[in-house]
């Protein structure tokens, strides 16, 4: 299980209000939320990001409220993986639970530049920077976490494991 795409780089302490401002929270529809993803920090992001692209953050990515709308907006925008130095705890859970893979890797988060072509292998935790010809190693996702992502989120994967999907 792997993904590849172009890197969109952001800084430290990207909070959930930046990811999706409270004024757009009257819906949980991923397509609508995606249109406003990162709008307060980069209003061109939603127009530029393409399916499969990868978001890079610094320290404490996703801090702030526990709103599940934040990872939903990122995933809805087409982002296939978020790599950051560190994530805020509840964002971390929420991302997996709605089926957005995220990886903590300080080296990758620091060395990857905006626009680099990136490939991530979730099984091995290997992150390849195709543009720079570098490789970074993150802790691989354990099988049942990969199953959550594969299944499209926690609820969907529970359904799948019961043979209902």
């Amino acid at each position, binding site marked *: 299980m792997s993904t590849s795409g172009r890197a969109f780089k952001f800084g430290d302490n990207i909070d959930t209000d930046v990811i999706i401002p409270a004024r757009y929270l009257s819906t949980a529809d991923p397509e609508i939320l995606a249109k406003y993803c990162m709008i307060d920090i980069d209003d061109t992001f939603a127009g530029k990001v393409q399916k499969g692209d990868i978001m890079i953050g610094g320290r404490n990515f996703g801090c702030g409220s526990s709103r599940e709308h934040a990872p939903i907006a990122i995933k809805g925008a087409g982002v296939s993986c978020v790599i950051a130095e560190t994530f*805020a705890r*509840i964002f971390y859970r929420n991302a997996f*639970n709605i089926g957005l893979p995220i990886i903590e890797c300080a080296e990758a988060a620091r060395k990857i530049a905006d626009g680099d072509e990136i490939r991530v292998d979730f099984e091995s935790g290997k992150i390849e920077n195709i543009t720079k010809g570098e490789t970074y190693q993150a802790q691989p996702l354990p099988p*049942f976490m990969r199953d959550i992502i594969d299944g499209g989120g926690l609820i969907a994967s529970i359904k799948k494991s019961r043979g209902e999907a």
Partner: protein
Amino acid sequence: MSTQAKQPMTMTQKILAAHAGKDFVAPGEFIQAKLDLVLGNDITAPPAIKEFTKLGQPAVFDNKRIALVPDHFTPNKDIQSAEQCRQMRVFAHDQSIENYFEIGEMGIEHALLPEKGLVVPGDVVIGADSHTCTYGALGAFSTGIGSTDMAAGMATGLCWFRVPEAIQFVLKGKLSEHVSGKDVILHIIGKIGVDGARYQSMEFVGEGVASLTMDDRFTIANMAIEAGAKNGIFPVDERTKAYLENRGKRPSVIFEADQDAVYAQVIEIDLAAIRPTVSFPHSPDNTRTIDEIERMEQEKGAITIDQVVIGSCTNGRLDDLRIAARYLKGKKVAKGVRVIIFPATQKIYLDALREGLIEIFIEAGAIVSTPTCGPCLGGHMGILAKGERAVATTNRNFVGRMGHTESEIYLASPAVAAASAVAGKIANPERA
């Protein structure tokens, strides 16, 4: 298994390992653990119920291991909150949830669950509320999660976790008079910062633990999340056992950290040196000791206040009310200051009434509210207007938390809050 030496574990690691059916779990490892209890409230349960319904599963995994507490916007403050409470009530009824607590038997969830004996040492508890970490006071692993986790937990009785590293806090000595658990945790947060324990477990040990009351421990564990921690946890001792007597609904399993367990950091705290401590706006780690505040007062004038709030899942327990009463007895609250006291549960309310505390509060000019989260999260029952300043025994002083974005919250102990209520400014309880 081999005869290889056993790998040492912290208290949290041991509890998680036992619930994951493993001999050892390492920090950073992902596990799936069995849950002893799943909690939700009137704000977080409705979306979880919606997700649960998507599974098409007829019944929850165990109707005795789910707790639903309408405490945030109750007694229903408006039509929307009434609808949310109704969704939860209907679900609780349909699923025969044993631990659904209607108005009249309710209280703030994190005070109520331990009081009812629903959490025991060795448990793994998740709650769709960030202050679920409170139950670490009982030697349980408990942590806040999102609504999707709650839905999955209700359906499967399982939850995934990343095993946290731990910071060990070695408590020495004894607290001095006028100082309580709140000062300890504010001091620690001031020292390590709001992300000082991010993802980590805060494990409190040392000879100083024995001198802390259960209510002190609940207060300390409650605010572990304010240092970014996943959980805060205390060892189980005689006081814990006494608290659980005639209360614990299930047998306790007592876990102890191995002597050679590995910690990310070890921090020594001398309880005797802790001073009354206050968190200034707008972050719990923006702390000052009362001595610093007194010096500030001499230079720049007193910090006058409009409101005092004593209560919440942090400091709404009986000990907290007793402390507050000590400084309010026979006194009057300062003119122009509104003092709102909200006991955390019906039982605490009744005990306080029988002890004569409520009378002391009313005679001093405070009001006493029914148990609710109300003012703590700026829900109702004491919202701040623009420019107003409050001293609160709650746990968060973020911008706008109790009302207008230009209002200010100073977090403090019940002693500081009560002394301030009388003085009309942030005041030193030692001089009250």
